[in-house]
Structure formats: C-alpha cells, structure tokens
C-alpha cells in the first residue's frame, strides 16, 4: 500500500493488437517525480502498452489512471490535454513541416504558452533554434529525436512517455538523449521510459519493470535490476553468458 497516489498507474491491462494478445494482465505504477523504465526484448509488448496508455488502442480489460483518475475511456486528445504526453517510437516527426511548425503542434493544447514554450525549448536545444525554418525531414536522426522530445515538452506534460528514444541512434547521440531525459526528470517531470537498451535505461531510472511476451516478469529498483542476470536471460535466453572469456 503506497501512501501517495502514483501519478500514472496501469492496472490489469489486456490488449489484443493485430490478432495477438500483446499485453496480458500488466500492472505498473509510476510515482510522482520518478523515472520508471519498462524494458524487454522486442515483441514483448512494450509499445502496445504505451499505445494503450495514450489512448491509441482500446484495451480489452484493465484500467489506466492518471493521478487517481480513470482515463481508460478518454480519447487521446483529452489525455494529452491532461498532461499525458508520448514521444512515439521512431520519432514520427512531421517531415513535410518545418521544425517550428512541428513544435507549434506540440503546443496544441497549450496555446497560451506557445511563445514562452518555444523560447524555453530553443534555449534547451539550440540546434533546433538554428534550424527552426527548415523542414523536419532534413534533420539528422539525433536532431529529430530532440525535436520529438521538444515537441512533447511544449505540451507541458505531467507524465512524459518515451518509446525507445535510443532506437537507431549512434552511441554518442544516445548519450545526449539520455542527458536530456535526465534533465527533464530533474526538473520534476514524471517519466515512463520504454527501452530496448536495458543498460542505459536502468542506469537512468529509479525503478524498472521487465516485460516478456506481454507480462511483467520482474520489477524492482533499477540498481538491483542492473545487477540481475535474470534480466539478461529475459532478453537473450538461458545459459547465455555475456561476460567476455
């Protein structure tokens, strides 16, 4: 029994997606101000979980609670307005629109704060300020990831959901992305991070959940999970020895 209400809670989620039972009875909690990570091999159902949290797919059973309020029946637009914002897998920047237009769209529900929001974001990501009039499609992978995150920040999220922000990025860029994520978290935003890159994710997080074929198989403080070989197994199979000879 936790004393405080988690800012984001998922309870008994069952999602069928494309014919598969992608998520089976998943529950997790994200406490206010914490960075929680959901890791697991590909195909484990992590993205589907985020899709359900954001309202892109309707679960067959289970609930999603934002600050204690049941938002399971809410449409996506309402969830975003309430501060539940996702940075999708693969970034999904709108390539035909300019950087600035992409960012403005991020502030869709925060019109009043558009100008100040842009200022903040350009200060944090000078690269985006430089390229504000260029088409988003002309940015490099790393820059697009920054754009996607900045865009989400303009929505003034209370809970920020990140779906595999490191995907397809070179290690140096992954460093930068994670630095940004950690800064955001330090400023008080609650973060749920879905990642395939287990090491990075667990190093940054407070708490972790490990997912395998639709279910949570392991959870605990991130530091403990980092040292736990069972995590390795969840990814790569039993008897797998990652230590160099």
């Amino acid at each position, binding site marked *: 029994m936790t004393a405080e209400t988690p800012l984001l809670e998922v309870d008994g989620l069952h999602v069928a997606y494309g014919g598969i039972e992608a998520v089976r009875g998943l529950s997790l909690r994200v406490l206010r101000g914490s960075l929680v990570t959901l890791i697991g091999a590909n195909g484990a159902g992590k993205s589907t979980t985020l899709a359900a949290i954001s309202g892109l797919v309707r679960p067959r059973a289970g609930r999603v609670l934002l600050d204690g309020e049941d938002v399971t029946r809410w449409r996506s*637009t309402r969830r975003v307005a309430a501060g539940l914002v996702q940075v999708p897998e693969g970034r999904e920047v709108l390539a035909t*629109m300019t950087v600035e237009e992409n960012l403005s*769209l991020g502030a869709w529900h925060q019109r009043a704060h558009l100008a100040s929001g842009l200022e903040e974001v350009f200060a944090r990501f000078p690269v985006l300020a430089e390229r504000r009039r260029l088409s988003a499609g002309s940015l490099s992978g790393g820059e697009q990831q920054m754009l996607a995150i900045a865009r989400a920040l303009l929505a003034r999220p209370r809970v920020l959901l990140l779906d595999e922000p490191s995907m397809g990025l070179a290690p140096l860029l992954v460093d930068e992305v994670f630095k940004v994520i950690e800064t955001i978290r330090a400023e008080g935003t609650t973060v749920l991070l879905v990642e395939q890159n287990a090491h990075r994710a667990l190093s940054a997080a407070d708490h972790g959940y490990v997912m395998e074929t639709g279910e949570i198989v392991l959870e605990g403080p991130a530091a403990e999970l980092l040292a736990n070989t069972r995590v390795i197994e969840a990814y790569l199979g039993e008897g797998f020895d990652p230590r160099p000879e």
Partner: protein
Amino acid sequence: MQQVANGVFLGSIYALFAMGYTLVFGVLDLLNLAHSAVFMLGAFIGLQLVVAAGWPLWAAVLGAIAAGGLLGVLIDRVAFAPLRRRADAHFAGLISSIALAIILGAVALGVFGPNSRRFPQGTFPGGRVEFAGASLSVLQLVILVLSVALMLGLDWLVRSSRLGRAMRAVAENPRAARLLGVDVERVTLITFALSSALGAAAGTMFALAFNLIRIEMGLAIELKGLAVIIVGGMGSLPGAMLGGLVLGLAEVFSIARIGSGWRDAVAFGLLFAILLLRPQGLLGRKAVREV
C-alpha cells in the same frame, strides 16, 4: 486576349470546385464522389434563397455556402465515418459516397423538379468592364474575384493557421497527430465541411455565371473536377488552382479550334495524358502506382 480572359474565368470556377476534392484527398486520403451533388445543391439552394425567400444575392450566396458546410458534415457522418475502421475503407468509401450522391440527386429531383431553372431578371447587376483588350461582365469579374479570394483564403488557412497545421499533420501522419493531442475526428469533420462549402460556392458561382441550373450539372462538372485534380496533382491545393487554370484555358482555346461538341473531350485528353506520363500530376506528391 478575350479567350484568355474567358479561359481564366472558366478555370477559376473549375479550380474552386476541384479544391474541395483535393482538400479531402490530401488530408484524409479519400475521394468524395458526393462532392458533385453538393455543387448542384449549392446552386439550387442559392436560387431558392433568392427566389423563394427573397434574400439579396450576396446573402443567398453566403447561405448556399453555409448549407454546403452542413452537407459536408452530413457526408462525413453518413458515408465515411461508419467505415473508418474497416479494412476496405477506401474502396467502400468511394461506393458509399456514390450512393449518397445518388440519394442527394434524387432528393433534389423530388424537391426542385426536373426542369432547368434560371435566376430571375435583374438579380445581378449589368455592365461590362474592359481591360487589356478583353472584356468581362461585372458579374464575371465579381465571380472571378470571389473565387480567387476563396481559393487563396483556403490556401492561407492550410499553410499558416493553427487549424491548417493540424490538417497537414493529419494528412501526413494521423497517428502522430493524435499523439500530439489533435482531435483527429474533429479535424476530419471540419475538412469535409470546408470542402463542401467550397463545392457549394463553386456551384453558386457557376449558376450565376451561366444562369442555368439543372440537376445534371453536378455530373457534368464532377468529371472535369477529377481531371483538374489529376492534372494539378491530387492533394495539392496550388495544383488544383493550376489545373483549373490549365483546363479552363485549354477548353476555351479548343472550342475555337475544334468546335464545342468536343469541348468536354479536352478534359479527358488531359486526364489521360497526365495519368500515363506523369501520374502524380504537375504539382502533386502522393503515390499513384501500386506497390
């Protein structure tokens, strides 16, 4: 030069009509074949407002445009929204919009009768305007100006307004738009409303320009509208404007060369040529071939 003026005038009406098609196709990837019915109903409603309700012309035109917007909402709710989750949504949407077009045409037939109509004498001001060796009637000039204004207005809306950004976002990636908090269903509705408002406007302009309102007018222009968007490029608003201009000029010049019987053939000649040689149209970007 007179030919050019006539061509531009005709082209502006074609373009105004075609923009409705291209807006829906560009944003929603749907072809709305009930658009022609809206064109026809716009004309009839405009006429009724003048004749039966005694409204002044300018009010009747606005009324027709508003009615067009409502029809757009109807089209979305009845023909397309119920199909959104289906796997064959595009194909079924084509058919359901054809069905709705038939229904609307039948309703018009029932309400207004099969005869062609005209605006009563004195509905619009007379007089002509001369410039650069061409002359247009005042009415024609007003229509031209209005049409261009509407088109430019829409283009501005899509390019620079918040709503326009949302429409472009939905056009490119509905899922990402949803994650940004955009209400995709509402944007869809607004897109249909705008598109049909333009269609009704085009119908009213056409009726004023040629002072002949018939049930069949929707059909006659439907295929030309399709030719315009194919030539200009599906999904491109500037393309629709350019395509309309091209078609208008081509038609006017061809009447002089090959006689009016073949005038409609020009549209289809262009259509085919573009489909075979440059399927994405002059300014278009969307994929046209199979995978």
